[in-house]
């Protein structure tokens, strides 16, 4: 029982020790030492998480640690799940980061500032799920946002785009914080206490309107953190511009905490709610799933593609969370537990494959200096291990067997399909649509990752940078190998999670359905059953593959030698790499199919030669797929703000007296209101 506090204390000590280490140490040893400390934070935090998943519980208060309220911590299985995931990702990414920093010198992630912040960021990722009071939670939440913001900014000297991305991120994450602050403050005021225990016991007495208000405010903030459409605008900006190790942490551990918050507040503290809450959540989830993956399909920037895919996967998870709320509202705790387990399993799987993918993308970026898929290609010959690891991650992301994503999407689909047992016209309409959304996003994900792998890593290099790529240093590969091992384990024996998943689900009051156990997955409800054994699928595929190879060899036993031949070039000159399909051309059919949704911008400039209008000198074609939701939703707000700012400039005339006067009048007005009010 004392394992959890000990592990948490170790993590905290290591994380805090990392700050001076990053600031003081000379550059030669900085990366290695800070990386080791961060990995230590991960291991310690992960241990605490695993212990909590194993049934351990822990709660502690430190009244003196924070002014007014004191700090409160509690760890249950739900926190444990998110801590374990974050811990594993942090540990692996920290190892990766040592290698990543080694090549960069003292710029970017290797700089003093970034190295000092990195362990702290890792620590907050682990401590946020352990917070058990509003003030503690908000403080850690904000610390997490600030540290991640600093890390996003790490490469701001190299590229101006980083600054713009950081501004977006800063604004959106703080708007989220404001909403969260408002929501939780209202909640705490109504519940008469700010510890989670007080909130939990106070939620029953609150009026439905207040409950609804609290839920909408906090859910908006949490979904924005999870990168859900339409509050996703920061995500496709910040993820590509951050150093890849940071992108991996953000995409695989930080966005998860949005889901954690949603589950914690929605189910545990508020104890569920009416159907419209969950329909709202499902609508957002479904929208992000489809819209996220569509934008990923259009992206040719590798890291942007991965960022949008995060949006999609979080959408699927939140779709599951919403369904759980819907089922719980209808009174079917068993189904709610099943679908929530599926959603949490997908969180775990997504973290594993997405951190691996971001790691591999970072390797590519490091080796070529290029993120644009259209300018890569042929990397499998020059970076075979990275290419193999990316392929493994992509297999998880496309949700096909034998990848790990398939396991959780299978469970998610099963629980949706069997959700029809819940009576009510809402479920009957929502669930088929949810199944269609999951299926469409899975299908599009297949196209997306075929594009990323096929265009980025296969065929021949399109540019000199891609041709000169070299394999990453050993530590980066080791970090990715850890994540790959995690992906493989989750894909083959999801039973490893077993009871932990059940405990996490039970922590919010749903029935554990033991969907994941031993050799595979089993869904058993009153009238339905289904099972999946990933290991069996792999064995069957391997056996079949062996049989096919052997049979082919036997059938062509008077075998001629395998010949190398030049590519078939239709008899003309050898096809150059520039003739190969690019990411943009690969995505073109999908762009046309989803024309109405994406609204791509295309224009063609034809420049005729001077002598005749009929002879063309140059044709320029531009194709851009802007984020339409962002354009429609954010542009007007930004324009309004800009206009408001312009008119507000009149107030700021430059006179110090006027500024002081504003403060004075404000104070007096406030006092007057207070007097009149009482």
């Amino acid at each position: 029982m004392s394992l959890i506090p000990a592990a948490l204390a170790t993590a905290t000590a290591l994380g805090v020790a990392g700050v001076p280490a990053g600031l003081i140490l000379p550059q030669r040893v900085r990366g290695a030492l800070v990386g080791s400390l961060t990995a230590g934070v991960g291991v310690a935090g992960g241990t605490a998480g695993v212990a909590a998943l194993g049934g351990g519980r822990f709660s502690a208060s430190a009244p003196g640690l924070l002014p007014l309220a004191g700090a409160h911590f509690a760890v249950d299985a739900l926190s444990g799940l998110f801590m374990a995931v974050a811990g594993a990702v942090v540990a692996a990414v920290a190892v990766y980061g040592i290698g990543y920093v080694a090549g960069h010198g003292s710029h970017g992630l290797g700089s003093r500032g970034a190295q000092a912040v990195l362990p702290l960021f890792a620590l907050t990722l682990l401590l946020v799920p352990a917070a058990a009071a509003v003030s503690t939670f908000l403080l850690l939440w904000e610390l997490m946002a600030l540290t991640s913001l600093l890390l996003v900014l790490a490469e701001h000297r190299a590229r101006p785009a980083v600054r713009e991305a950081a501004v977006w991120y800063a604004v959106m994450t703080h708007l989220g914080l404001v909403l969260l602050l408002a929501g939780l403050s209202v909640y705490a005021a109504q519940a008469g206490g700010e510890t989670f225990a007080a909130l939990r016991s106070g939620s029953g007495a609150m009026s439905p309107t207040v409950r609804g208000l609290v839920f909408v405010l906090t859910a908006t903030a949490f979904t924005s953190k999870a990168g859900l459409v339409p509050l996703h605008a920061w995500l496709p900006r910040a993820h590509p511009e951050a150093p890849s190790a940071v992108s991996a942490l953000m995409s695989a551990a930080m966005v998860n905490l949005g889901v954690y918050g949603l589950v914690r507040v929605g189910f545990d503290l508020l104890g569920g709610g009416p159907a419209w809450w969950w329909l709202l959540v499902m609508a957002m989830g479904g929208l992000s799933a489809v819209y996220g993956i569509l934008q990923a399909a259009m992206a040719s920037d590798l890291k942007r593609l991965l960022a949008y895919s995060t949006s999609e996967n979080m959408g699927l998870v939140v779709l599951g969370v919403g369904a759980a709320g819907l089922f719980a509202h209808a009174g079917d705790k068993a189904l709610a537990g099943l679908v929530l387990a599926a959603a949490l399993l997908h969180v775990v799987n997504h973290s594993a494959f997405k951190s691996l993918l971001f790691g591999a993308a970072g390797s590519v970026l490091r080796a070529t200096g290029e993120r644009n898929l259209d300018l890569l290609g042929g990397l499998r010959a020059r970076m075979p291990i990275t290419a193999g690891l990316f392929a493994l991650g992509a297999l998880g992301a496309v949700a096909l067997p034998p990848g790990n994503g398939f396991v959780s999407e299978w469970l998610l689909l099963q629980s949706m399909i069997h959700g029809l047992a819940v009576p009510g016209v809402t479920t009957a309409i929502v669930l088929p649509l949810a199944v269609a959304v999951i299926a469409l996003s899975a299908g599009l994900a297949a196209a997306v990752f075929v594009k990323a792998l096929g265009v980025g890593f296969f065929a021949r290099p399109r540019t000199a940078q891609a041709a000169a790529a070299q394999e990453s240093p050993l530590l980066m590969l080791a970090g990715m190998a850890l994540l790959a091992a995690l992906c493989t384990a989750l894909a083959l024996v999801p039973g490893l999670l077993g009871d932990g998943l059940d405990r996490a689900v039970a922590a919010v009051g749903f029935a554990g359905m033991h969907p994941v156990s031993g050799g595979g997955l089993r869904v058993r409800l009153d009238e339905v059953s289904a099972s999946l054994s990933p290991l069996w699928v792999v064995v069957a595929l391997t056996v079949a593959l062996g049989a096919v190879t052997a049979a082919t060899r036997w059938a062509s036993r008077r075998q001629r030698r395998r010949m190398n031949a030049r590519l078939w070039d239709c008899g003309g000159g050898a096809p150059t790499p520039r003739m190969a399909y690019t990411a943009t051309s690969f995505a073109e059919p999908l762009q046309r199919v989803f024309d109405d949704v994406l609204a791509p911008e295309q224009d063609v400039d034809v420049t005729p030669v001077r002598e005749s209008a009929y002879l063309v000198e140059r044709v320029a074609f531009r194709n851009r797929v802007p984020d339409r939701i962002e354009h429609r939703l954010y542009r007007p707000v930004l324009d309004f703000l800009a206009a408001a700012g312009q008119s507000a400039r009149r107030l700021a005339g430059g006179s110090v007296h006027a500024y002081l006067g504003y403060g004075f009048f404000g104070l007096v007005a406030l006092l007057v209101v207070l007097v009149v009010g009482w």
Partner: protein
Amino acid sequence: MSESLFTQLLDLACGAFLLAAVVVLWRRELAAIVRLFALQGVALAVIALLLGLHEDRWGLLVVAVGIGALRAGLLPYLIRRALAAFVAERDGGLTRHGGSEEARETQPLVNVAASLLTAAALTLLAYAVARPLVELDPTPATRALPVGLAVVLIGFFVLVTRRRALAQVVGFLLLDNGITATAFLAASGVPLIVELGVSFDVLLAVLVLQLLTVRVREAFGTTDIDDLRELHD
């Protein structure tokens, strides 16, 4: 007729009824659309026939025969004749738009894939709306009520989004079919005399519309309804 057989057949007829409306959205050829409309008329007649047989109401059988004759026979015949007139005129080759455009719904206001998805949404809406009604009196007939409602909505949708006047006429007729089916399924039919009156009205409406489209066509050379906006000025 046994209860389960009746339910089965009624479900099948309703399914065909709905499917015909959906496929109208799918096809571009006006000739095919008219054929589908005729098919839907047959399905409607079968629904009436089944209800009449099941509830031993011989009046409904008469209505069924009447519906079959009107909606699967006469109306499609009239529309087809109008269509043939357009196509024949096309051969004169004097018109501004090609005749093949007259015979096809080439550019509906909402593209076909989106129309189909909209139809899915409308059907779901119909089911959701009709749910309370069904629960009042859950018989096989009322359970199929949403089908009628869905066809009403789809008919309206066709009316809104199709450009060709004849496609719009079909949309109008789909709407009417839907209303009739809803009436049958909800209350096992309206009185005979009302049904006859409505049918007569529809017939008149179609004749008037047919005349109008011919006139429009003669005056403007096309039946693209959007072109009528020019009249506004």
